[in-house]
């Protein structure tokens, strides 16, 4: 971990989507999705900067998207209150779920992409069965008392973060819900790859690392500026560093253990809101306004 390679801009893509609300790697990290304020989702090959497909059908800004495990489907959510399941190749919407009462802020597939989980401003989390033809959510979680800001789904857990200052972890195996009071609005929650910790971006300009089992605070990372942005965080592929954007246009790398800022990437002067780390390699996608940057270690031989 000490020999952390210095990342630099490999590719800069201008998406022409007004504002990129979210950028997401697909399951193997070879493609990425950008959700734009222009109501479109774009599928890119970030490494070669090729726009592969544009998915249009939302009636308002697309706020989040996720690719299925076999990369054949995309699920996206929008402030038009709908969740849409897309067919990647044809670009046609397969299903459109309209169960939310307000804009849908985040969406994720489960591990086998048999179910989509979406969180909304209406304080609910909905489980959508994408296999069957059911149009209604199969389950609704109504524990949160304010907007759901992010969702993470593992094989048997669902982690939700909410504006009501609570992090909620739903465990399907045990059949219980853990809720941790954080004290600050959580703008984004993610989990380490080992599934032992969760990382919460809070509005007090900190990122907090919690132990999942005990709910204890393990570490706090600060230095960035969140202002009023729903900043996202990420963890690198080795679980060695915590990454977060900043309202100042930088990307911070903190050492997970020492909570020292090891690296500061400057993307521009616009806030870097959305982040997506490559699942296996040392690549990072960051978006700020209309621009998506792929960060990585430039290969010498090429």
């Amino acid at each position, binding site marked *: 971990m000490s020999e952390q390679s210095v990342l630099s801009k490999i590719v800069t893509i201008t998406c022409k989507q007004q504002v990129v609300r979210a950028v997401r790697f697909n399951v193997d990290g070879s493609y990425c999705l950008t959700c734009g304020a222009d109501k479109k989702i774009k599928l890119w090959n970030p490494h070669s900067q090729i726009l592969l497909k544009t998915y249009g059908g939302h009636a308002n800004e697309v706020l989040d998207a996720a690719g299925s495990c076999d990369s054949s489907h995309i699920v996206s959510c929008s402030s038009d209150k709908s969740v849409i399941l897309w067919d990647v190749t044809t670009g046609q919407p397969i299903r459109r779920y309209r169960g939310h009462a307000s804009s849908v802020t985040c969406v994720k597939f*489960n*591990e*086998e992409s*048999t*179910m989509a989980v979406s969180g909304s401003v209406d304080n609910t989390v909905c*489980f959508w*069965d994408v*296999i069957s033809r059911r149009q209604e959510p*199969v*389950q609704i979680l109504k*524990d949160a*008392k*304010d907007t759901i800001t992010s969702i993470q789904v593992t*094989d*048997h857990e669902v982690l939700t973060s909410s*504006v*009501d*200052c*609570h992090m909620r972890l*739903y*465990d*399907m*195996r045990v*059949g*219980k*819900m*853990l*809720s*941790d*009071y*954080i*004290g*600050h*609005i959580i703008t984004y929650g993610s989990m380490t790859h080992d599934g032992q910790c969760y990382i919460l971006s809070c*509005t007090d300009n900190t990122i907090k690392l*919690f132990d999942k089992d*005990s*709910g*204890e*605070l393990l570490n*706090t990372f600060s230095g960035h500026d969140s202002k009023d942005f729903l900043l996202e965080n990420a963890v690198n592929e080795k679980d060695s560093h915590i990454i977060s954007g900043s309202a100042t246009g930088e990307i911070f790398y903190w050492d997970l253990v020492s909570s020292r800022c090891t690296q500061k990437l400057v993307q521009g002067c616009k806030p870097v809101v959305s982040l997506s780390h490559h699942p296996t390699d040392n690549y990072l996608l960051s978006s700020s306004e209309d621009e998506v940057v792929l960060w990585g270690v430039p290969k010498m031989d090429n």
Partner: protein
Amino acid sequence: MSSDDSDEENVIRYGTPLDPFEEDEVPSKRKFQQQADQFAVDENGRRRFHGAFTGGFSAGYGNTVGTPEGWAPSSFKSSRSEKAQISNQRPEDFMDDEDRSEYGIAPRNLQTKSEFSGQKRPLQQRFHDGPIPGEPVLEQFIRAVHETAAVKMLRRMGWKEGQGIGDRLTRREKKRAEDQHKVYGCYMPPEIRQESKQSEESSDSEFEYDTLFAPDDYDPYTIQHKNDRFGLGYKGLSRHSVLGNLVGEYDSAGSSRSHLLMKEKGKKVSIRGQAFGVGALEADDEDVFAAPDMSHYDFEIGGAAEEAHRKRPPQSASVLEGFVKATKPPAAPPSYPPPALPRDFTPAPAGARRSRFEPAAHPQRDQGLGRHELTSEARGALLGEVPIPKTEETETNPQPQNTEVSKLLGKTINFVTENTQKDKDIDFISIKDTGKDINVFKPFISDPKKQARYERYLQGGDSNVERDVATGEGDRLSAWERNREMMEFEQAAKLYKPLSGVMGDRFTHASEPDDGALNPLSAVAKSSINYGLATPEQIEAAKIGAYGVVTRKEVKWRPEPIVCKRFNVPELGARMEPKKEDKPKVSYSIFSYLESSVHDKESFTKEQSKFSGSKSLNVDHEKKPKDDKPKDVNPVAQLGNVRKPTEPIEVNTGPNKRMTVAELFMKESEKDLQIKSKSKETEVVPTIEKFDRMDLYKSIFLSDSENEETNEESTSTDYKEFIEKPKNVERNTSPPRGIFANIDFDELNSWKRHSEDKNPKTIENNVSESKTKTNDDTSEKINNDDKRETKDANSSTAMEEAVYGPKIPENLLKRLELPESNFKPMFRSKDEREREESSSSDSWVEAKVKPKKEKKKKSKKHKSKKKSKHKKKDK
């Protein structure tokens, strides 16, 4: 006529030669030649018309009907995949090729437009039957000039309408031409021709110019419908000719349909068309029935009028030929001055108010002329009356109306609305009697006086109103009106009750102004609102960063089964199933509502606590006697000891009745699989068992089963029954059906009982029975003989008489013999009955007709109890 060239002979043959006759062939009659099928076919030889009356052509897709391959429906094309490329079906898809040809239904060739087609008359329009039927008047005014090309050309060449075509002619030539009028086809009837000539003559005679005339227009001979059955040109007698001509018909001789025709006025009357009216030898008779008219006679000698006509009007310069200069100037068209505008008229074009939301320039009056809005005072003021000095009550009336009225004398019409407008500023009045100032809606705001009265009514009730009457305030109202008003007030008071009374506690003032709803851009306070989710300790802990146990909360959460399935997580079903069963399976029988004690959860838990750990039997037993008659306690207690050896087994195997009910409601305590499975089996049972206390119920539903039990096991207490019953899960607990439905076993047994009660021996019998019964359980069969003996000893006398079957039952006989005074077939306590039943069953055993009895028993056993039977066999 044909000549055969092969024949060398110069024979001329006429006619068609017959077929060559062959000798060996028998000359047959002409073969029937079937005519070729008269089917219309298209050029491809396909049949063109199909179906009944050959109405449907092009049957089937591609005209496939009638083809050897048969009909083929138009091929279905799914539009699912290519929604965007749906092409509409065209008529051509359903037509044959020839339908598109020149004479088909959709010809595709050039055609003259109707304008140039030479068709004189356009197709008759259809007029809708509106309020003004017929051709719209406006269209009559504005009629498009529609002329055929030929007419236009003729016009150019100088032709005018009403003229014939050709060179101009002099009068003579014209006349001659007329004479030589060549007619193709049928000749016009001479009369008609004559008529037309005559009329022409008369008209021509008026002008004797040396001018050229245009040839006469060809007068098309309009063919009339022939609507009689006479020969051509013949007109039979009509009623007219018989009864006489009507007056005036002679004048329009040409058009007259009369048969009397006056050829020259007053000279000769020719009668035509008479067939039978005048005989052949008779001279032409005058129509005797014709009504004589003075107009028929000529009063002048000679054609006097002609001369006058022949005078030529003096020709003057600058006057066209044939015209006369007018002596009088033409009357000028009348001109009307524009209407005088009212003095205070201000033009208000429709577009002046830009939107309907814009406030009107001046307030609109509510309705009508405003007469009815005036109060009596206003009217009085208008009439110049001196206002009556107000009473005290009216002074409470906040509206300073009177002064205003006097002020507003000039513009009275609007004053009421002005008043109400003012009132609207203070739309609420405070009510004093509640102690605080509460805003109350004013229901009668439109009528201030009424409102004042209403307020007074609110303050003091009826008494105030009565006072009004006394003071003359209410004088203006008749008694009936007053009554009605009172009712109105009552209702209004109910409706518009001050909020504090009814709804006050349900609503609160908003703590924050609801700006966000109005202005989405207004800044929202940062949400650190807690919603009561976090305890103060949690907040404290979060503040100091002591996350962990304090800040964590654990809640049970159950994922839906489908979610588990999709997540590949084992379902938490086993644990969570109770949740599903939280709702007890309600049996919707009336009886479940009769017993209210076990209805709601609380009452049930109460009961449950009574039986805490109700697995032990004793609890049940203690409970039971409470419900039953207290005197049963003793036998229960006595028998309890004796029973012990057999009971525990039964209890353990069978589910407790009470428990199953408990599970249905609670599902919290035990969740043994065994019980569960049993509970499923006994789902029906609880609803019945629950009500075992009710004698009525029992007497209806349980008596049957009790009988059996007692018969088989000969228990004398219900104590036994309650332990035994659950044992057999398959037992049919439903009310008796079929042939047993209408049999009241209770009654049957009760008769028996009474008979035995009368018998003094039965008491002893009972004792002995109870003793024997204890043994019975272990070895009933063995004891049978003994029992019989004892029974014989006890009640042989009684039993000997008893013959079951066709004979009258013994107990019935007894009953007849010893009429009971206090005989009650119903509503007896169970134990009593059972005791009797048991005894009676014993007595049955001893009866002479024993085989029959056993049969009955058997059938009953078959019906329900199998388990017990087996048990017996075992023993």
